[in-house]
């Protein structure tokens, strides 16, 4: 049973800052809405009835707890390390996004609002939001970059079937960052009856905190499960990082376990030198994007540089402020994984274990293979398998000529 303590991670400070990161850089019109969301969230997570309702939905609707699966045949390619997968791909709608969305949909009800909006890259957050909106009877509009609409056509169809209106965004790079801009524009116009179900641990305070705390369940469960399975804590936890919600979700329960290494894997796309990547923490600089101070891919005048990844969910030039803080404090380490390495890991997991992972998660799998070879035999690596790969089959068919 989920407890209020499971819904309360440490930080940020009263201004929503993690060290120098985070905060609020948004039009004044949105400040009252952010204040209200913050207040209602703080009340909700301390209300046993809210926690019970959220727990009930997670168990009876989302399919929690998700199992931890050991993957020995895959791990043969990882220098003999043990690899354990936290199976968020087995949740309803097929990705970790459902946890946050169910929590925020309940918050929407508590806020007395009737309409939800969301942005989506790969479509998983959009599908999850459309699902929760259908479940709770909320009107739903999803903003999605026109480029992403094309490469994730299946998810667009799913959202429509679930009753959501999908709005393709044709401005800027026509990907996730522009969908977020458009969602903010909608929110500032319709904030009286609309809640913005932000999809990742980025954006203005309190979103990084809310999304993290609704995703914390991943790590809370996994920590207990790994101890049950192996008798001890893992040596390392690995997760992919776009905005960073699945990574924070699994990292957070291990923050105080100083011996557990935390590794985040960003999309290196065609490689750092190519300039076509989404290496925000590795190659970005400190700036402000989408309402928060964090690492950003930007030029020398603060214009956002378009990111690239084969995986729509990682194709984002910003990152959650808490990750920026974990990086600078040294508590977590962030690396890049190329499209090519991610696709190899994608195919390898499918062939060795019968699991088709999301392309996002494949970055973490590729990272774990390398990490396993570094840590050596006997090491245990917990990987957050953040989602399943059905949505990515069009990309895989093209890439592998299937």
């Amino acid at each position, binding site marked *: 049973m989920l407890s209020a303590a499971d819904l309360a991670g440490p930080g940020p400070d009263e201004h929503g800052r993690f060290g120098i990161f985070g905060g609020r*850089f948004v*039009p*004044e*019109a949105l400040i*009252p809405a952010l204040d209200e969301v913050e207040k209602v969230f703080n009340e909700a997570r301390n209300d046993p009835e809210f926690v019970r309702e959220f727990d009930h939905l997670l168990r009876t609707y989302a399919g929690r707890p998700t199992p931890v699966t050991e993957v020995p045949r895959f791990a043969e390619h990882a220098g003999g390390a043990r690899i354990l997968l936290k199976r968020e791909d087995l949740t309803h709608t097929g990705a970790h996004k459902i946890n946050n969305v169910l929590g925020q949909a309940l918050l929407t009800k508590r806020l007395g609002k009737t309409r939800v909006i969301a942005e989506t890259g790969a479509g998983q957050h959009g599908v999850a939001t459309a699902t929760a909106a259908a479940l709770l009877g909320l009107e739903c509009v999803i903003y999605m970059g026109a480029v992403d609409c094309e490469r994730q056509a299946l998810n667009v169809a799913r959202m429509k079937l679930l009753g959501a209106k999908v709005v393709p965004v044709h401005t800027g790079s026509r990907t996730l960052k522009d969908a977020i801009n458009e969602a903010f524009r909608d929110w*500032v116009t319709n904030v009286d009856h609309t809640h913005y179900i932000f999809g990742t641990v980025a954006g203005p305070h309190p979103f990084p905190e809310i999304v993290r705390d609704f995703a914390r369940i991943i790590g809370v469960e996994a920590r207990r499960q790994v101890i049950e399975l192996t008798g001890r804590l893992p040596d390392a936890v690995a997760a992919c990082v776009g905005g960073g919600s699945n990574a924070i979700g699994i990292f957070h329960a291990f923050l105080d376990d100083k011996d557990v290494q935390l590794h985040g894997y960003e999309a290196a796309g065609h490689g750092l030198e190519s300039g076509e990547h989404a290496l925000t923490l590795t190659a970005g600089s400190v700036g402000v994007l989408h309402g928060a101070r964090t690492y950003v891919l930007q030029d020398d005048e603060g*214009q956002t540089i378009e990111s690239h990844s084969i995986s729509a969910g990682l194709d984002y030039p910003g990152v959650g402020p808490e990750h920026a803080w974990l990086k600078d404090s040294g508590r977590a380490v962030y690396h890049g994984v190329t499209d090519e390495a991610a696709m190899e890991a994608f195919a390898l997991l499918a062939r060795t274990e019968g699991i088709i992972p999301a392309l996002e998660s494949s970055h973490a799998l590729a990272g774990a293979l390398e990490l396993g070879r570094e840590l050596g035999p006997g090491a245990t690596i917990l990987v957050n398998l953040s989602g399943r790969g059905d949505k990515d089959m069009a990309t895989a068919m093209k890439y592998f000529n299937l």
Partner: protein
Amino acid sequence: MTTLQTVFEKARAEKRAALVGYLPAGFPSARGAIAAATTMVEGGCDVIEIGLPYSDPLMDGPTIQDAVHRALVNGTRIADVLRTVEAVAATGAATLVMTYWNPVDRYGAERFARDLAAAGGAGTITPDLTPEEAGPWLEASAAAGIDTVFLVAPSSTDARIEKVVRCCTGFVYAASLMGVTGARETVSAAAEGLVKRTREHTTLPVCVGLGVSNGAQAAEVAAYADGVIVGSAFIRRLLDAPDEASGLAAVRALAEELAAGVRA
């Protein structure tokens, strides 16, 4: 350089509201922006806001987004913004820069304030900078002797308005409605109430922006505000014009119509 204080004192003496026009630097071209802004001044604008084109303008509607995108495609840089300010300030209009925070943050707050003052700029409007994050910018602007304009919105509580106006010098920007920039058929009824509430917390002039696009609307707003801010409607004239000369003629005509409106 003309200060905002001078502009509002003059307008007050003439018993009218001030007219504030917005245009991004680099649109329709580097020279075109200067020509258009100069025309706006000749047509009757007292204050010009030069927009600093930014890749992620989350408070702007489609018209300004379009113009800003074109400015960026044209290769507009901060040096071009400062050159535009210099040219427009030379006309005698108080010239502000309207900018999202990240470009200033990246350029360096002190450096930006200093360079803007050196170009003859009167100050800045920063739509996504909240009082909580504004400390360094207020210091840098005060040191450079330029004004800082922040926004209040219909959703702002009285406590928020109090907090925002404490960061303002020059004037307070009252967003007339909940929404993004862009011309609208009617000016929101929320604007008058917001101006009234804002005046309970400050003696600074209060200007109203968002949604104003014609002389009648300008007159309506001028009846209760110290200034009327118009952006998208000017840009629309330039976007719709078949060539530069007719675009400038349309901009001049709109400025004259609005200038008559604030005097009505």
